[in-house]
């Protein structure tokens, strides 16, 4: 740990390569204590409503476990299923020595000032782990909730799908209704072991003055599958992330799907990078972005390092009501025998499609909304129906704001 602190200290002032630089001293980071909540059904109705928008259901229907962090404090963590562990990372680091083999093993602690802060001033975060061979059919839900105005919430999450296990996680970040300004720094490290399957669906519901800097890296071993879905359709001031996944074992597969809506005043710089390092690995990155007046940079980067890999990148953008979309798809084939492709398009809604729907009786507004919903509806193979429903709900919800 001391080594980590030293490295972090050296990176304390290191600006990130992408995204607007944030003055960390402008945010509070002193711990905000909240009581542990044994029964999450007793949370306030207002909190529950905000959490539901991020896919976190206080009734725990069709969920196999829950982690909730409010501001800097883990207020709830438990697993409903055998073979599944859900725990706050601070406690887990004290208790479990094995966690050191995962902590900061994928994300470099000295990547930038945000990773440094997450080490030097860690609030909490979750460790979710499916034990070897266990199939967690219902999703685990995790919520990082921000209530304190002007707070910098620094979290570190570690997700482990052990060999032959199956794990689905829905994680929502949300802010209290009144909250305007804050910073979220989130480190996530994903370990998908041999023949394991992990789906990770993240729904973000931020506030208009929120700055968000996630830093995440995944590693997928032989025969493993990692599905990573990211949905952010609510206003946020500045969001920059470039999650990266390494496919290190034969036949490993990673798929990234992201749905972004940029409202006025919002800056989003969101990418996805998958590095294919082993034979027969497959990767797919799909992004759908809508600018409603905000500025969106949609990056994608596929790196093929060995022959026989297949990878595809698809980035489509719609500029609805002003704003900009900058699509930057990159393919990097490092040897002969790779098969990589990309398609990118930025445009508007085709008049022909609107008229087609209108000639079936829809008003112009309803026709537009139908097309936008269609644009955002991406079929994600392997995603459990409950999570599909959560994504559909987020899309339907954003629709109301957009139109």
């Amino acid at each position, binding site marked *: 740990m001391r080594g980590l602190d030293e490295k972090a200290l050296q990176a304390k002032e290191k600006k990130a390569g992408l995204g607007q630089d944030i003055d960390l001293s402008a945010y509070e980071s002193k711990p905000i204590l909240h009581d542990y909540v044994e029964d999450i059904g007793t949370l306030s109705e207002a909190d529950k409503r905000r959490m539901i928008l991020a896919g976190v259901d206080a009734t725990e229907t069709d969920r196999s476990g829950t982690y909730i962090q409010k501001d800097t404090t883990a207020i709830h963590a438990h697993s409903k299923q055998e073979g599944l562990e859900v725990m706050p990372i601070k406690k887990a680091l004290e208790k479990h020595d094995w966690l050191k083999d995962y902590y900061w093993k994928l994300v470099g602690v000295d990547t930038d000032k945000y990773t440094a802060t997450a080490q030097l001033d860690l609030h909490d975060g979750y460790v979710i782990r499916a034990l070897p061979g266990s199939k967690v059919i219902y999703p685990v839900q995790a919520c990082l909730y921000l209530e304190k105005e002007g707070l910098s919430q620094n979290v570190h999450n570690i997700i482990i799908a052990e060999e032959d296990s199956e794990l689905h996680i829905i994680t929502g970040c949300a802010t209290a209704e009144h909250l305007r300004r804050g910073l979220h720094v989130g480190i996530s490290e994903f370990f998908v072991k041999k023949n394991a399957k992990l789906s990770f669906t993240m729904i973000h519901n931020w506030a208009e003055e929120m700055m968000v800097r996630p830093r995440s890296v995944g590693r997928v071993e032989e025969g493993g599958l990692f599905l990573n879905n990211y949905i952010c359709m609510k206003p946020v001031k500045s969001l920059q992330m470039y999650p990266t996944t390494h496919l290190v074992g034969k036949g490993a597969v990673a798929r990234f799907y992201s749905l972004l809506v940029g409202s006025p005043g919002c800056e989003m710089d969101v990418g996805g990078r998958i590095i294919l390092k082993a034979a027969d690995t497959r990767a797919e990155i799909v992004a759908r972005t809508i600018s409603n007046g905000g500025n969106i940079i949609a990056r994608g980067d596929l790196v093929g390092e060995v022959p026989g890999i297949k990878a595809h990148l698809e980035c489509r953008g719609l500029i609805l009501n002003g704003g900009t979309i900058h699509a930057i798809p990159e393919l990097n084939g490092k040897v002969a025998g790779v098969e990589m492709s990309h398609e990118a398009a930025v445009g508007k809604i085709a008049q022909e499609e609107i*008229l*087609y729907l209108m*000639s*079936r*009786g829809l008003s*112009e507004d309803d026709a537009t909304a139908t097309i936008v919903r*269609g*644009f955002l509806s*991406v079929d994600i193979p392997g995603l459990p129906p409950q999570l599909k429903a959560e994504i559909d709900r987020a899309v339907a919800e954003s629709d109301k704001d957009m139109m």
Partner: protein
Amino acid sequence: MLQIEDLQVKVGDKEILKHIDLEIHQGETHILFGPNGSGKTSLLMTIIGYPQYKVTGGKMVFKGEDITHMPIDERAQLGIGVSYQRPPTINGVKTKQMVQICAKEEVDVEALAAKVNFSEFLERDINAGFSGGEIKRSELLQLMAQDADLLLFDEPESGVDLENISLIGNMISELLQRDFKLNREKSLKKLHEERTKMGLIITHTGFILDYMTADRGQLLYDGELTCASNPREIFTCISEVGYEECVRCAV
């Protein structure tokens, strides 16, 4: 009833329909013939209400309402339905959802789809990668759900394979209340008299006439309706001597 009086239409600066007069009475189906570029599709698009077809003169009245400048969606709600020749693909909008959109109320989409042999396409994005025949069946399915009173068909038989052409022909016939199925309660004559649906069908090949009856044929030549007669007669005439004969009538 659809009443078109002295209709003149421009697309951009180009005059494409000149002084069209056409009446389709309740229960009537008309077949619209004409060479390529004569304005057949333009006439359909104008009746549906596509904004790029600018009406510069004359008027259109449907069910007693002046629809000349009515928005496209209001015309659809008033009961005008169309089967397109090349409808656009809408990504992420499922065929099933489209059928539901067409119907004003809840409909049994599965049952309707079974009638046009289209059940396996319900979960596909509308028109995405559909073949010619699949597009026609999808369009018919939507029309069935919409339950329109005036049905416009733009070449319903083009690109359809032999196996499906009778299915499509018979379905159009049924939609226009022109099928001759025995009915215990009413005589066929009575049913004929009670027909309410109106149809206007563009055809190149005339194949559709093998599957259904029609009341009148209309020939559109260079933006004008030059001839109205028995549809079979017009079709036979065109087959024998081609559209060149129309030149004589147009002058």
